[in-house]
């Protein structure tokens, strides 16, 4: 079974981002970039499936600028076999990403796609579901456990009230939640080896997809900020403040 893992290059989760003056978006120049944490979890899961003999090949794919090669190399260093970069400049919306990915899935004849549940820059939480829709496949989102069977998979999902276990027919699209696994760090020898693994470059046009945005971004603002309040000396003082000053209890 061939597994495809879409990975996104995003601002590192430890960076505190800044909104550019004049509402022109978020400052991305000279900011540390990383693989989206949920994509790392997706890559890890695919590699574990290969290690267990359930997957034959793991292909990582990114839709983004030339620098997304670094992100793909990270995936290769973790253990993926091959990489595909679909070159696109600027932000691409999930619908367009899903359309490109559909083209890649069909060209590669993949049977399983594992994505992150959410990109931590746009916080959209859409791409996997959209890809499943476009392919006409089943979907298992927010996965915390995946068991592959014959022609089907059983996936445990993190849902609002607790956990849900569903059975989906293969081929399928799975999106990874935080507790699916703990991604490994790539070792130095594996980072060296990754440099020699194949990385193919494509364009959105190769898949006949227009990436023109459907949402017009009118403004990007700083959120309302909170100020630090006061320190209280004791639980008694806290209760007094909550009752008589804040009036919330």
């Amino acid at each position, binding site marked *: 079974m061939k597994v495809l893992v879409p990975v996104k290059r995003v601002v590192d989760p430890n960076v505190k981002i800044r909104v550019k003056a004049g509402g022109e978006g978020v400052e991305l120049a000279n900011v540390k970039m990383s693989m989206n944490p949920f994509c790392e979890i997706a890559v890890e899961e695919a590699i574990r499936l290969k290690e267990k003999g359930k997957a034959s090949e793991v292909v990582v794919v990114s839709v983004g600028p030339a620098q997304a090669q670094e992100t793909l190399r990270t995936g290769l260093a973790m253990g993926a076999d091959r990489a595909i970069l679909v070159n696109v400049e600027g932000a691409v919306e999930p619908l367009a990403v*899903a359309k490109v990915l559909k083209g890649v899935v069909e060209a590669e004849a993949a049977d399983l796609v594992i994505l992150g549940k959410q990109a931590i820059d746009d916080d959209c939480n859409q791409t996997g579901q959209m890809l*499943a*829709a476009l392919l006409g496949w089943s*979907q298992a989102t*927010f996965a915390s456990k995946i068991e592959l069977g014959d022609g089907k998979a059983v996936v445990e999902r993190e849902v609002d009230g*607790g956990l*849900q276990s569903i059975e989906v027919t293969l081929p399928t699209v799975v999106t990874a939640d935080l507790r699916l696994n703990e991604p490994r760090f790539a070792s130095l020898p594996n980072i060296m080896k990754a440099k020699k693994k194949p990385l193919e470059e494509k364009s959105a046009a190769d898949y006949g997809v227009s990436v023109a945005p459907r949402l017009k971004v009118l403004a990007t603002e700083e959120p309302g900020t909170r100020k630090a309040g006061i320190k209280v000396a*004791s639980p008694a003082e806290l209760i007094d403040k*909550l009752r008589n000053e804040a009036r919330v209890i």
Partner: protein
Amino acid sequence: MAILLLAEHDNASLSELTARALTAARRIGGDIDILVAGQGARAAAESAAALADIRRVLLVEGDTLAHGLAEPLADLVVSLAGDYDALVAPATTTGKNVFPRVAALLDVMQVSDVVEVVSADTFKRPIYAGNAIQTVQATDPKIVLTVRTAGFAPARTGASAPIETLPPTAASQLSSIRENRIVKSERPDLGAAKIVVSGGRALGSEERFRETIIPVADKLGAAVGASRAAVDAGYAPNDWQVGQTGKIVAPDLYVAVGISGAIQHLAGMKDAKVIVAINKDEDAPIFQVADYGLVGDLFELVPELQRQL
């Protein structure tokens, strides 16, 4: 303008998040129908029909709709979409699972997690864990939205809109339910509670989390939340996680106990009216957003707080 709002419910009862999403839908303006898709969901449909100023409730029942599976539910919404200009769902795990599938089938780019309706086609939404707010204008012929319900007050009840029953669409065979481990609790729902008490990694074990956090939450009539670190360590169940990738809450009072205040956690609670932080590290980032800070050992301070309440 006609709007279809997807109800959040568990068949037996309607979630309050539906009434909150209705408030957002109303700001778009137009006739609003509420879709209750489920199995044995008449009671939920009746609660939906009581919500003020809606045109009607559409009740669709079928085996495959019983648990909100994405494929049949998306097919159903798409089959109804022709009559509507906008489709709205609360950004719950059901809404987030189903609506992007609907959007893609309609060739529409969804607007996720709307926190403000600026006009019928323009919306505000947080990006980067709420560290920036984007205003976006939708240009597709239809609008597909999920709404972050914490910031919208529930719509009033007391009305009685008609309930129309529709047949289900052909059942999709792509997926099925194996097991639901949904914990029913007497406690207020985390997404709608007026007071939330959350515990972090500092609680140290599941036992100590329960012994320390639950009694004070009970005294306050509060819902219980947790940081990702506490959930990952197994001190609290996954659906208690508050944050960028967990639940978003905006209660009147949020009490963060032994939580450092990472940006991903703040993303889920910084719209609370009043924030209290209890932490032994006086430089913990959580104090930068807390209205009232209590510095010290939580294992002494929290029991004392509970006794004095």
